[in-house]
């Protein structure tokens, strides 16, 4: 689709044909079309971000609540009963509430925060800006994808208020537990709402993913070949490919589960006797089938989460290291290898389900091989830092932190992926430590990295750096203090998802450690309010941008005006002549992608105005004056 046609088709009323220079200022937009039902990819990106932040806050608070139980099983917190009523008896959260909290914590963190909030935000915000497009291929579909996500959020939230409580069978929702309301109260109405919410979320992801893919493939500006795209765009593009190919399988799994729940089928159910209810009529189903369908998405899902983070980190690290990303094509190839292998490793979550040992051995092989592209990426990041000239902006700090936690969490994947070790550590705290570091904390760091880096582009203002520094150091130290000791608990065999360990001879030696971890959780969670305050305060009160290109970046998004309208570039879309990583080349600190090859020394292209580092006086006023 033609770049200009997009805006006309998507926002026909907003655009005066043949007058692109003024186009975005002619928008006669009400508050509703500008901020709520907006079709501007930037606004939709911000909507994803803010919804994601709200969910992160809720999900994080849930972890504080259940860590209170784990850390202080003998202490009563009367205020808990005040806040959550009968879910906390005598100041202790009940087992039922505990399992609901862990379940919903997992679900919202992985789907709503790290998929919706991370890739939703940056795919929307960055793709058109970085490839030189006026908007997404279908702005309408893009808007719908957000509103499906929003509806999914509301339904998930509503499950907190049903009588039998939200779903409590773990974020993986394995049947028969998730299929039988008699097996767990959370599997009654709460599970129906959970399924409805996630099905809408899948729809949202498919709408969004198709859009990202078609935009990247079809709407790149002149000269922007695939191998000239910033790695951040590569990251979100490849995660969209993963999502589009794997989410439908999860959808199918959910549909079968709904049939088993309500229409008497036996896809997953067989030979079940529930105490107090009796034998159920189901025969011939297989509970493991669901696990295959679930993990066929479930494993690619972790790469859906981490690929955008990897891309963002690469871009931010290169920009602030003033050095090209090392091995650009190796970076792209390794991401590509991850995409392919991601589809072939799902059953490593199921080594102890009694699967065929030969099948298991194939999954061991492929699982350990997926460590190779990840290793390549880590070595490339290290080499990017080597002999750089590093500016520690908050974004850069989180990029470095990302590499650190990704190494720590990634290496433990070699233990868990090897079935002979997995048989001991499966479903223990070792797994919790592994995946929280490698895809929880790492993806969060990628998200923080992106927010700090692109905040000026989003809102035309700076965030406070000092708060950013404190936020980073507290979070990095906190994350290690929380998750590092968990490896030891896991190696001692301490199982996940236990409400109380005090009656277990084998695990009760960790009482003090659990308390220590819980205290670290509370402090680290509290530190996130520094970010929250910084983010929301800076939207309105942050220091205004005085230059277009505050980080002296090469990428295309910084050639747009400080306050970008719908349509992104007031004039023609710039043409691209080179890759985005020409930093410190031939004595030039940076060479934007728009500079033609061989013209690096041409004063026209080195001027402060062209590179975007010219200080614009009173940017807001100048902006309105020009178009008055």
């Amino acid at each position, binding site marked *: 689709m033609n770049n200009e046609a997009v805006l006309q088709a998507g926002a026909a009323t907003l655009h005066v044909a043949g007058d692109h220079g003024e186009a975005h200022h002619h928008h006669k937009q009400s508050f509703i079309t500008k901020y709520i039902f907006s079709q501007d990819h930037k606004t939709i990106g911000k909507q994803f971000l803010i919804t994601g932040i709200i969910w992160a806050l809720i999900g994080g608070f849930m972890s504080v609540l259940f860590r209170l139980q784990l850390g202080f099983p003998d202490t009563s917190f009367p205020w808990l009963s005040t806040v959550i009523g009968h879910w906390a008896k005598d100041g202790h959260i009940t087992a039922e509430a505990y399992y609901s909290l862990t379940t919903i914590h997992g679900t919202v963190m992985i789907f709503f925060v790290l998929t919706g909030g991370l890739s939703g935000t940056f795919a929307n915000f960055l793709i058109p800006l970085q490839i030189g497009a006026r908007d997404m291929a279908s702005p309408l579909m893009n808007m719908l994808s957000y509103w499906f996500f929003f509806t999914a959020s509301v339904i998930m939230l509503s499950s907190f208020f049903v009588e039998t409580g939200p779903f409590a069978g773990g974020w993986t929702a394995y049947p028969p537990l998730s299929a039988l309301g008699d097996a767990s109260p959370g599997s009654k109405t709460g599970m129906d709402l959970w399924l409805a919410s996630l099905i809408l979320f899948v729809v949202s992801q498919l709408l969004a993913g198709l859009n990202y893919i078609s935009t990247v493939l079809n709407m790149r500006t002149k000269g922007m070949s695939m191998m000239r795209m910033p790695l951040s765009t590569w990251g979100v593009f490849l995660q969209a490919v993963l999502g589009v190919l794997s989410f439908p399988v999860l959808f199918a799994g959910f549909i079968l589960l709904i049939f088993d729940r309500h229409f008497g089928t036996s896809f997953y159910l*067989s030979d079940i006797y529930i105490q107090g209810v009796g034998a159920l009529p189901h025969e011939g189903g297989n509970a493991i089938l669901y696990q295959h369908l679930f993990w066929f998405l479930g494993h690619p899902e972790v790469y859906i989460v981490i690929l955008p983070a990897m891309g963002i980190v690469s871009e931010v690290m290169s920009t602030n290291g003033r050095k090209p990303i090392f091995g650009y094509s190796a970076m792209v190839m390794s991401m590509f290898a991850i995409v392919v292998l991601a589809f072939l490793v799902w059953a490593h979550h199921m080594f102890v389900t009694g699967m065929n040992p030969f099948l298991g051995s194939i999954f061991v092989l492929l699982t350990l091989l997926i*460590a*190779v592209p990840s290793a390549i990426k880590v070595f490339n990041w290290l080499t990017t830092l080597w002999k750089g000239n590093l500016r520690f902006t908050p974004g850069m700090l989180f990029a470095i932190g990302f590499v650190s936690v990704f190494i720590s969490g990634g290496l433990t994947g070699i233990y868990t992926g090897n079935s002979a070790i997995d048989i001991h550590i499966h479903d223990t705290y070792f797994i919790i430590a592994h995946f929280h570091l490698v895809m929880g904390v790492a993806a969060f760091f990628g998200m923080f990295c992106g927010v700090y880096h692109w905040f000026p582009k989003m809102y035309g203002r700076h965030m406070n750096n000092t*708060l950013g520094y404190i936020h980073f150091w507290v979070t990095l130290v906190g994350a290690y203090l929380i998750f590092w000791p968990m490896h030891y608990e896991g190696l001692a065999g301490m199982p996940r998802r236990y409400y109380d360990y005090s009656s277990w001879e084998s695990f009760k030696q960790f009482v003090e450690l659990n308390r220590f971890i819980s205290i670290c959780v509370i402090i680290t969670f509290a530190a996130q309010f520094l970010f929250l305050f910084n983010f929301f305060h800076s939207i309105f009160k942050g220091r205004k941008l005085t230059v277009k290109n505050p980080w002296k970046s090469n990428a295309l998004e910084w050639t747009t005006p400080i306050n970008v309208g719908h349509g992104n570039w007031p004039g023609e879309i710039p043409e691209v002549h080179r890759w985005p990583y020409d930093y410190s080349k031939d004595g030039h600190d940076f060479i934007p992608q728009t500079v033609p090859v061989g013209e690096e020394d041409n004063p026209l292209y080195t001027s402060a105005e062209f590179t975007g580092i010219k200080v614009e006086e009173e940017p807001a006023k100048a902006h309105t004056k020009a178009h008055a």
Partner: protein
Amino acid sequence: MFFTVAAFFLIVIVIFQIAKATEYVSVLKGEEQSFKQSNKVNGVLMIVFLILGLIGVYWCNKLLYPRMTFREGSASIEGEQVDKLFWITLILTGIVFFATQILLFWFAFRYQYKENRKAFYFPHNNTMEIIWTSVPTIVLLIMIVYGLRSWFLFTGDAPKGAMQIEVTGHQFGWEFRYPGEDGVFGKKYFKDIDPANSNTLGLIWQDNAALKQKADPATFDDIIISGTMYLVKNKPVELLINSQDVIHDVGLPQFRMKMDAVPGTPTRLWFTPKYTTEEMRKITGNPHYTYELACDQLCGNGHYSMRAVIEVVTQQEYDVIMAKQKPAYFRAFPDKDPSNQQPAAATDSTAAPGAATALRAAHDTAALALR
């Protein structure tokens, strides 16, 4: 509580004031100047974090290592392979871990912004890429080969002569069935489960026309013990694993073994206990040491309490314990229990042993028929 909250808010206010102040300072001093200053601070913090982190790793290990089960090692012979593979993996990943983390934070510190330094334009180097693609691949392949050898041993057939125990999980407890004297597990069916009549596993004790079942005599001497599993030291044991309701998991942390219990899909697992419970208490110096079976798959609100005890004993002790057990059949049908019939048939002293022999003969034919 109040003071904690107050202290928290105080800290927050102080941090915000500092943040605000730095913003004013940067306006006064110029952005460039304050950037250089904060960059230096962050650069130093990188190296501080690295050093404190390494000390922390050492200290954490010193504190927590004794609380794991690695000091006394695996309690099963096969589990030793898990430990061995774990140590190999730990050494290899440990080298990578320390090398990359040290390089990461050292580079961050060493190459922090200096006004007159030019970054080195170094976009790619094929030799380096090839090295760090092929070396990890080779190392990983070695680990795969090592791991799979153990994997095929664990998942392969149990050695001949292994004792068999059927493990059944339900919300929220464990039942253990021993085949009894005939060495054969009688048939069972989930629709026959009837806890009110002591048939907790659904053994087919009686003819049932509705379900088209004939009583299986092999069930008559099966022994069911709830909550405790007895194993014999140095005797391989094969667990036949079932679940009655939702997915559970037989987690045996001390033996380094684990297998899901799936309703409708039986699974199995075998290992050889190395030390009796008594021996382990001496080795660890912990008089309360207990082998525990933990459910490792979320199975409902009582998941955390789904515990069973494993007693590893010597063969003599085992024989004594088993001799005291009564087949579950007699719990449901006390009138068929020979020991109950004894007083009534006291006049005919040969009747009871006769009945027992007849019962045993019936089992033997049933066992033969099943084979």
